[in-house]
């Protein structure tokens, strides 16, 4: 493991040999940048559904120019995701102690390979507009990526690691959902990389896995942003976790690392109003073309000070102590 902050060497310029003959609607507009009224988010780029999205052509192009190492993980992941749902045992285990059940589920998830586990309620904030799910609780799962491989951002080698971990965390979610169904409770795994009905980052934040960072990704105390997410949605009665405060905002307000290192300059230095709330936001129209050009980029999450292995706990302690002074 590289215990240093990663500095990408010579990332490609944000110039593109691809474009839209008929440009789609701005992704920022679709995402609700500057909108003061609350509304649910809309799918823009990745999707697993049949309906074509506004930026579908670029997503298709992204898939086409991805290296074979990425495609093979995507294919294998799609194959394993056929088991996201399945038969529910007719004998339902009665649950009296929700907290004990939550502990048992977390232990099971860890045994299956999850490194971070949190439980929350399914709310409108984690569902795309027009999507509903017949589940009340969500188990958010996180798994870290190999820092040595991720040191190669924004090269294909790092993209392969991202897809590999997505595959592993999806497998964990599938196994966990299956074990819940064996208890007689409905459960469905939601694997990435493609968002289906749910938004994994708000779900992870709400489940206490971490906080939203300036670069628009989850920051956990244990792995910073060097992690990938999946989830299991279920009706199994579980005690829920609270969102955590590890001091992410305290650092993000002053830190400009991801802003400076983002080649297309897509990261805003201040929070933006998005669909009725103020939050960290990344300029979609600047980020996505570079993301496509570089097989998924990921520079921002690797240069983040929180992603330095072992640094999160002490950093959090310092930031929270400073706030108390």
């Amino acid at each position, binding site marked *: 493991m590289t215990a240093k902050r990663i500095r990408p060497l010579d990332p490609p310029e944000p110039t593109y040999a*691809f474009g839209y003959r008929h440009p789609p609607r701005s992704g920022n507009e679709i995402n609700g940048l500057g909108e003061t009224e609350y509304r649910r988010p809309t799918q823009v780029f990745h999707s697993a*559904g049949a309906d074509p999205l506004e930026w579908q052509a670029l997503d298709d192009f992204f898939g*086409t120019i991805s290296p074979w190492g990425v*495609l093979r993980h*995507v*294919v294998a992941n799609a194959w394993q995701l056929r088991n996201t749902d399945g038969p529910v045992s007719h004998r339902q285990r009665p649950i009296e102690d929700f907290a004990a059940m939550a502990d048992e589920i977390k232990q099971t998830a860890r045994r299956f390979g999850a490194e971070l586990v949190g439980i929350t309620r399914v709310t409108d904030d984690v569902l795309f507009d027009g999507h509903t799910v017949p589940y009340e609780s969500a188990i958010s799962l996180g798994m870290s990526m190999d820092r040595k491989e991720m040191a190669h951002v924004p090269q294909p080698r790092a993209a392969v690691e991202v897809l590999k971990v997505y595959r592993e965390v999806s497998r964990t979610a599938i196994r966990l959902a299956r074990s819940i169904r064996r208890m007689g409770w409905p459960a469905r795994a939601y694997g990435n990389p493609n968002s289906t009905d749910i938004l994994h980052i708000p779900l992870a934040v709400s489940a206490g896995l971490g906080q939203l960072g300036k670069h628009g990704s989850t920051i956990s105390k244990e792995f910073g942003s060097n992690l990938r997410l999946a989830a299991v949605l279920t009706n199994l009665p579980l005690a829920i976790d609270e969102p955590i405060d590890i001091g992410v905002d305290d650092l993000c307000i002053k830190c400009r690392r991801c802003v400076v290192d983002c080649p297309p300059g897509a990261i805003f230095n201040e929070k933006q109003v998005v669909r009725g709330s103020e939050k960290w936001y990344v300029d979609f129209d600047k980020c996505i073309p570079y993301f496509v050009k570089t097989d998924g980029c990921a520079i921002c999450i690797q240069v983040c000070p929180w992603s330095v292995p072992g640094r999160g706990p002490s950093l959090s302690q310092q930031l929270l102590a400073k706030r108390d002074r």
Partner: protein
Amino acid sequence: MRTVETPTSPNRSWWVKIRVDAALLVRLVRMTISYATAGRRIRTLYRRAETAGEYVWVDDLTEPAQRLK
């Protein structure tokens, strides 16, 4: 890249599961073949455009790229 989702029903019978799984398998094999054939043409066009300082238009490539779904 889009994940191919299978229609799932919690208590579907084994033969429905086999049919759905077979359909998914066929789809993934076709997707891999398209990546190797149509995808290769697109990648070649793109690399040439990159070298020549020109553009490929992603909306023109939608039809062949969609075969990768």
